[in-house]
Each structure stands twice: as C-alpha cells, then as structure tokens.
C-alpha cells in the first residue's frame, strides 16, 4: 500500500459528482447560446499575437525549425484569452459568436487561479455596455440561479465602501484611505501608482461586499484600467464591467475599443510599464490591429471564468475542487 503523497497525485482533485456538475454546466452554457443564436467558434491557442498588458504574463512556445534544436525557432504565445481571434472573426463578418476555451497566464496560482483555466467568451455585434451586461446577467442566472444581477458603478461602490471618489482621488488620498481603513502594506507600496492603490482598495474593502445578496455587476472602471474597452465622459471612465458573486470576480466585459491608433498608444504605454517592471515587451503589432484598420464593428464582449462559476455552483472554495488536474498534478 503506497503511503507517500507522490503516489496519489495521479488522482483528480475534483470528486466525480463535481466533474459531472461541470459537464452539465458546459452543456447549459451551450444551450444558453444556442437559444440566442450565437455561433460556437474556435480560435487558435497558439498565436503570433497576444494581448499586451502590464500585468498579464503570457506563456511562450517555440516552434522549432529543426526538431534537433527545439529551442530555436519562431515564438508563439499561448493565449491569455481568445479576444484577438474572436474580434478578427467579428471584423470578418461575425454577428454573434461564443467560445469555450482554455487560456493560459504565467504566475497565476491560488485558490481562485490556475495558470491554465477555462474561459467562456462571447461577442455580439451592435451591443452596447447595457446590452452586454444584460446577457451576462442572464447567463449568470441560467448557471447559478441566484436571480438577475444588480448593477453598481465603480464610483458608487468606492464611495460607499471606501468613502472616496476613485476617479478624482490622488495617489496620496488613496494611500491615506488605505491607512484609515487599517490596511497594512509593504514598504514597496511607496512606489505604487493610482491604479495599484485602487486595486488594493478594491480587493480589500470593496470586493468583499459585492454579490452577497445577489450577483453584482460593477461598471465604468477607471480609465487607467480600460485595457481593450473604449473610454468616455469627464473624468474619463472605461466602458468595462465585471460580474461578482459572493465577493468573487467571475467575468470581465468591454464595450470594445474600435480605434486602432488608440490601441497602438495603449500597447506602447503597457510595454513601457512592462520594461520598467523588468519584464520583456510583448508584440505591439498584431493581426487584431490589422482587423481594426479595416473596421471592427461596434460590439461588446465578455469573458467568464468558467472554473470559478462551477466552484460557486458546487459550494467549493477553490477551483482545484472542480478541476480534474490543477497545475501541480498536470
């Protein structure tokens, strides 16, 4: 009878009833989109392009020219989300498309993170942010049966739980608020920028309140966190939204940025920040930019973390409990 851990780690970390629930929920996702006439698509996991983000670190794969020298050749990227491929399909005539796929992010490991995870992502031509939030609320209701989501602006959530205006507060005011709220941070936060402080306050004092009595969609993010969403208003906010259930972030959506020169600017900015953080730059040019030059239709897109949704439906507290083999056992 083997006693050590190593001999047991071929086993799944999820129980069979949970793997069965996972399978049923995948079928429910497909039923939901079929009913709304979304087309299921597949786009490459390995691509020459990848999202350029200060805090998303993609895994790279070398495609060897010569199998005897496996580390020499073209670099491809495991996608951090299927965003680029799906937007290229929209630019080429797609109307309403969805995909269930694996995504990869280096360094992300914890009860709610696994470097390889499952995303449900969808786009619909002509949707604005309100319509995008409605479809997200409907899907969450279909999967979790917790009723329709309430919508709360990022600014209102911060006013209520952190007592400040997140779009106007200075770094110094955000730091003072963190101190007033009793948050103990490392000395290195001295160099933190506004968005670092906002993320700290979001994680520590805002998120725990979100989605407690029913699902919450937080919308209109700070312009500095727009990623691939368009911005509007004064002070500018990003048409970005996120779904929370019981304090856990489940989905991220954008009323998509259409302007290629704006995206070039953001890529450049993100690469400068990556460089300052000591991280390699990511390819600034992409086939997504080429598609945007031709014209990306007005659309809203959403990515849902499927593992976390199954985790909540199962009453589990870590996604490993609803995955066959998390990274340590992969």
């Amino acid at each position, binding site marked *: 009878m083997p006693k050590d851990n190593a001999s047991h780690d071929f086993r799944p970390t999820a129980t069979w009833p949970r793997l069965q629930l996972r399978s049923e929920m995948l079928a429910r996702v497909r039923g939901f989109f079929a009913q709304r006439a979304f087309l299921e698509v597949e786009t490459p996991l390995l691509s020459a392009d990848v999202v350029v983000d200060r805090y998303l670190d993609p895994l790279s794969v070398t495609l060897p020219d010569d199998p005897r020298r496996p580390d020499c050749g073209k670099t491809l990227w495991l996608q951090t989300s299927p965003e680029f491929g799906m937007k290229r399909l929209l630019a080429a005539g797609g109307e309403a498309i969805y995909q269930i796929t694996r995504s990869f992010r280096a360094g*992300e490991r914890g009860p709610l993170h696994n470097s390889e995870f499952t995303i449900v992502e969808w786009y619909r031509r002509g949707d604005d942010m309100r319509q995008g939030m409605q479809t997200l609320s409907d899907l969450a209701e279909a999967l979790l049966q917790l009723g329709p989501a309430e919508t709360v602006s990022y600014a209102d959530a911060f006013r209520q739980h952190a007592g400040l205006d997140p779009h106007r507060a200075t770094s110094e005011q955000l730091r003072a608020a963190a101190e007033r709220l009793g948050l103990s941070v*490392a000395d290195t936060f001295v160099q933190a920028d506004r968005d670092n402080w906002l*993320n700290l306050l979001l994680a520590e004092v805002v998120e725990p309140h979100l989605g407690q009595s029913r699902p919450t969609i937080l919308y209109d*993010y700070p312009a500095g966190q727009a990623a691939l969403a368009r911005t509007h208003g004064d002070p500018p906010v990003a048409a970005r939204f996120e779904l929370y259930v019981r304090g856990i972030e489940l989905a991220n959506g954008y009323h998509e940025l259409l302007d290629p020169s704006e995206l070039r600017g953001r890529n450049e900015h993100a690469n400068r920040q990556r460089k300052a953080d000591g991280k390699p730059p990511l390819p600034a040019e992409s086939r997504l930019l080429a598609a945007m030059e031709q014209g990306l239709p007005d659309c809203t897109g959403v990515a849902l973390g499927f593992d976390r949704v199954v985790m909540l439906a199962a009453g589990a507290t870590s996604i490993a409990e609803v995955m066959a083999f998390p990274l340590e056992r992969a």
Partner: protein
Amino acid sequence: MATYNTSDFKRGLKVQIDGDPYLMIECNFVKPGKGNALYKCKLRNLLRGTVLDRTLKGGDSLESADVTEISSQFLYRQQDTFVFMDKANYEQYELTKEQVDDAWKYLKEGMDCQMMLYNNNPISVSPPNHVVLQIEYCEPAVRGNTATNLTKPCKLESGAEILCPAFVEIGDFIKVDTRTGEYLERAKG
C-alpha cells in the same frame, strides 16, 4: 542575504522584516480585475509571537531570515536558565525562561526538543506534542469515581500544575498534550 520574490512565497517561509525574523503562516494570491497581483500574507514574529498582516505587490521581495531548526536534548534547569544540547554537534545552549516560554511546563531531563536558531542564537524550543510526566503531588483520589469530567489540580515533576481527572494519584505517570496543556490519559512510566 538571499531574498524571496513573491512567486516563491509559501507557508513556512522565514523572512526578515524591520530587523525581526518572521514565519509566513498564510499567503493568499489575489488578482483583482486585470490589475497587479497582490499577496496577502500573515506572518508570525518569531521573537515576540505577534502576528503581522502584510500585503505585497507581485514582483516585490522579502529578505530571508537566517533561521534554522535543530534537534536538541534538554539537559537540566538551573533556576531560570534552561540548558539544551545540539544533538548533532553536542554544543550547549542556555535559554532564559522567556525564551523557553510555555515549554518549561513539559521539560524533563533527557527529553528531545526542536530548537529554533536565529543568526545561530536560540530563540525558541518546542517539546514533542505528547509527553509523559509523573505526578508529584495531588489531593487523594476519589474512590470509585472514574468520570473524567471531575478534575483536580496536579503538580507535575516539571513543576507545572495541570488539571487531571479526580481518579489519578501521586506517583502516576500521565500523558499530556503540550500544544493544549491538557491531560490525555494515564501512562506507564
């Protein structure tokens, strides 16, 4: 001195903060939205025993603390000085009562203990989870009462006083859980 990057963080890491050694007792990875990763850590000060909450950004680092654990043997006590020996090299260490903390209650000559050294100086000892000690004094046993819910204070050979069931007698050997200070059962000497 080596440093630990946030990607090395895990429970059990010994790090140096503001000149004191800390043990990482919890580390939670949090990543809000598409923002920077946060590592929410709980750390125990190995000198004072206090617990510190500290949140670090992804990419931050902490200095490692020169903390090692050795197997030692308790030799003897002289007033408030406790003398231990490193079982590997026979080197002797003297600890104060403060450093020994609650462990003094369970120490018996010749007992094996884990000792923690910080910069090669002892900072704490922990006795085994279960130890067997003899009762030096207690009130006479209540005849016929074998219920364990009736207790009385008993003075042990180590000098500590703990609550035991009413049926135990002077000279009995008992097994004690050193983590809770509770009586477990009667034992053979």
